[in-house]
């Protein structure tokens, strides 16, 4: 079988689990909603009230439309339902409009579209986005590939790409996999490429899918000559190396080292405070972070680093391992882009965690890496929910999910999956949480250095994420090495 079949009694828990997750989402309808709520309300209003030609030019609100056109069409279709809940939310000028009906509608739309997501595991969704629905499509696409239905998988992925362009991160994996495994119909006996088996028909089929979906999505805008405007909205490169809250990737560590060195330099009187960039001492997490000691990082450098990190994908070119190898490369691709990308948002870690969860049930080593990555990754999302009322919810959900994944994986692979160092690190997360949410706010530094909890969270988590990335990379290289060995 393609995927590990769960035991018979495990399946009986599934409907209860799905029910439980949906129930929690319904009951959290009145919980905190972030600015994303207003973002989507605004997009509902724009797509409903304005003609298509104005969608990507509209900027009454600061939250301009910056997703690909297919998502805009999705919002447009939602807006037709929305008008029955509360017409006022669809008026563009009604900024920050939050009537109870509006809240209800938005939450319900997420919950309903989440039916797409019901296949997979927990996904806390208080922070308002349609991620559940999009991840559902991603997983469906992966599932289709695992089942050998490649054209469907390709279709789903193209749709996904046109809904949210962040999935460009993993497009290379898809590209190479489809090219290698689908367009070349046969392999040599040792698994290497058989050039003669190239099938132009399949290549054309794939190409036509990609082009037709793209045409459906971007077509109207290309016809109106608005493509540059749309692209500029989709890829705003002015934003800075890191988000306001540093995603726990390599650059967070890089920034931390830079800051530490500059503080050290000032203390040891090796540097002159006046010559350092303004506010680098106490500014904390600003978008345009200027490095004072280490060299600055530009978008092209991040691109090169990302590409280098995902070079390992070429191993599936040399020796494709079927759909499972594809999945592994997908994860490495997503994680590599997360680690080295420009202006990465911390939510992108979910893009690596989710496909990985499918792999985690299949091998012991993967399960161990998965537990590290998922716990650290989910914890790194905590700063997104910062109100006191939601604190118990995020802690409880985190405990719930962590307990569930640990015990179910432990049951699958008898024995402990993490070594003592890893366990200590994960327990350290508890200490970090208490420090950041309880101890620090009551200390005198809360007012002078308010960014310290965010900094600590970011840096601590990036250690865990980097560790998981390295282990995953090593496991992939080791696989590649054993294959070469077999060949000899």
């Amino acid at each position, binding site marked *: 079988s393609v995927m590990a079949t769960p035991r018979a009694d495990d399946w009986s828990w599934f409907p*209860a689990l799905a*029910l439980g997750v949906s129930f929690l989402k319904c*009951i*959290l*309808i*009145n919980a905190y909603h972030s600015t994303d709520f207003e973002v989507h309300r605004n997009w509902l209003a724009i797509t409903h009230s304005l003609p298509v030609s104005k969608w990507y030019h509209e900027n009454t609100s600061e939250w301009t439309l910056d997703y690909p056109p297919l998502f805009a069409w999705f919002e447009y279709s939602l807006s037709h339902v929305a008008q029955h809940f509360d017409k006022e939310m669809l008026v563009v000028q009604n900024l920050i409009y939050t009537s109870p009906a509006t809240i*209800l509608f938005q939450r319900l739309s997420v919950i309903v579209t989440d039916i797409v997501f019901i296949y997979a595991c927990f996904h806390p969704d208080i922070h308002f986005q349609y991620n559940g629905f999009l991840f559902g499509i991603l997983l469906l696409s992966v599932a289709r590939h695992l089942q050998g239905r490649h054209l469907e998988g390709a279709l789903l992925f193209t749709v996904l790409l046109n809904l949210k362009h962040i999935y460009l991160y993993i497009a290379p994996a898809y590209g190479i996999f489809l090219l290698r495994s689908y367009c070349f119909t046969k392999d040599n006996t040792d698994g290497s490429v058989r050039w003669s088996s190239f099938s132009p028909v399949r290549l054309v089929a794939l190409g036509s899918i990609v082009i037709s979906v793209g045409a459906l999505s971007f077509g109207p805008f290309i016809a109106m000559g608005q493509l540059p405007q749309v692209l500029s909205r989709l890829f705003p490169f002015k934003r800075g190396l890191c988000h306001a809250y540093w995603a726990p990737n390599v650059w967070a560590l890089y920034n931390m080292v830079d800051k530490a060195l500059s503080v050290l330099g000032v203390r040891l009187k090796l540097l002159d405070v006046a010559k350092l960039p303004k506010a680098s001492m106490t500014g904390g997490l600003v978008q345009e972070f200027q490095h004072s000691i280490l060299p600055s990082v530009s978008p092209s450098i991040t691109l090169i680093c990302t590409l280098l990190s995902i070079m390992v994908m070429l191993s599936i070119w040399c020796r494709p391992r079927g759909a499972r190898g594809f999945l592994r490369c997908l994860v490495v691709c997503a994680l590599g882009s997360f680690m080295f990308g420009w202006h990465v948002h911390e939510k992108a870690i979910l893009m690596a965690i989710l496909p990985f969860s499918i792999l985690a049930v299949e091998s012991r080593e993967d399960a161990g890496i998965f537990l590290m990555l998922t716990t650290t990754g989910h914890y790194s999302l905590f700063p997104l929910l910062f109100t006191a009322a939601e604190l118990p919810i995020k802690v409880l959900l985190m405990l*719930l999910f962590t*307990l569930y994944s640990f*015990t179910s994986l432990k049951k699958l692979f008898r024995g402990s999956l993490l070594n003592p160092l890893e366990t200590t690190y994960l327990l350290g997360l508890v200490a970090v949480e208490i420090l950041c949410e309880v101890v620090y706010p009551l200390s005198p530094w809360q007012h002078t250095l308010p960014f310290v909890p965010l900094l600590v969270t970011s840096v601590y988590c990036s250690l865990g994420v980097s560790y998981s990335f390295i282990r995953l990379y090593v496991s992939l290289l080791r696989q590649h090495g054993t294959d070469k060995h077999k060949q000899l």
Partner: protein
Amino acid sequence: MENWSLVSICVLFGLTARWAVSLNSYSGAGKPPMFGDYEAQRHWQEVTYNLPVHEWYFNTTDNNLNYWGLDYPPLTAYHSLLCAHVAKLINPDWVELHASRGHESYGHKLFMRATVLVADLLIYIPAVVLYSFYLSEGSNKKKVCTVLCILLYPGLILIDYGHFQYNSISLGLALWGVVVLGLGWDVLGSLAFVLSLNYKQMELYHSLPFFCYLLGKCFKQGLAGRGLFLLVKIAVTVLVTFALCWLPFLSDPGQILQVVHRLFPVGRGLFEDKVANTWCSLNVLIKIKTILSTDTQLYFSLTTTLLAILPSSIKLLMKPTLWQFKLALVNSSLAFFLFSFQVHEKSILLPAFMLPLFLKDGLLVPYVVTSLAFLFFSIYLLSAFEHCSEDKLRLGPYRRLLICMPRMDLGRVTKWKFYFSITAMAGLSFMSVALAPPDQLPDLFPLLVSVFSYLHFLGLLLYFNIVQIAEPLQSVRKNQKKSN
């Protein structure tokens, strides 16, 4: 999966559901001058913190009993005092005498909700877990499902975390009493129940079963020897616990009388508002409140309550087993609810029948979600419909009563009756929310809800009484192995 991890997941899930409901509105939010139960609890913290003990239950210049005067026994007052001390540490404005009246703020709401959660976590939830694992039958999976379903019970969640009350403390203590009695520790069990009674006088509903069970046990052990010893131990425990709880009030008989007067407001009449009990429903046909005088009403309700509870209590006295005890608890509380004096709709803690209350509090969405979830979970996890045979439902006595209709499968009848009830409830809920009542009958929907509920409760009372009484006094030898 191991038991403890499954139970932890269930508890975490239950806690999440509770806190999620608590993010919603509470009773009397933003409604001066009286506000609601939330303000009442806050006011009690203010009163107990700032005033000396002998003034808590009295009408003084500082303590206006008309504005949410204390009407629960002393343990509630001590609990409020404890919470007030914590509140004072966080923000003294919350319990400032007079100045804090009607205080509503984001931080305060979090604090109050947190007090409910802490109490729940410390008292009620452990009792539920212990009960499911030690006192219920079935496989481990069934026990875990029981924990989940009990923890998800919407009535308690909505009233404690939505409307705002501390029922989990008194119910939790009573449940501890049941668990401990089930384990055979009679003295501790009676201690737990006395504490529960001293938290909310509503626990009187459960007092007769506890009394009869323990007394029956003493009789069984023989009044000449060990039985008498047990009786004395229990009696001493009860008296000492009462004395300790009421210690500050014992110095002056006037104090005791006043407290009792506050706990049992006999001047207020047979019922208020729309309650799903006999008197309110009877009032539709005969206006009892106006026909009888208050005193007559009081004696009448007292007599009927005692009559209603007599069969169950006597049976329990004669056969003090755990199963009989559990049945008696149900029968006693139902009987009290249906027939006693000044019952409030909250006393039944059954969500669908408290719908008008939730609508007033703005808790419609949590009500719908938790009720649906509870229904689905309990039906799915506890396979309720698969156990719908005549045997499992103990419908034997009914079969004997309905000799004229031997062909009917009572199990199926019950199932269809259940569907009908659920549909009717959903229909009534929908109508209460979506439609406006006709002008001549402004109270139509609450009245319909309460009469409908009343008929159900009466039916349940009859059913459980028959089940309890029909059980033979001496179990057959092979049945004795079956745990009860």
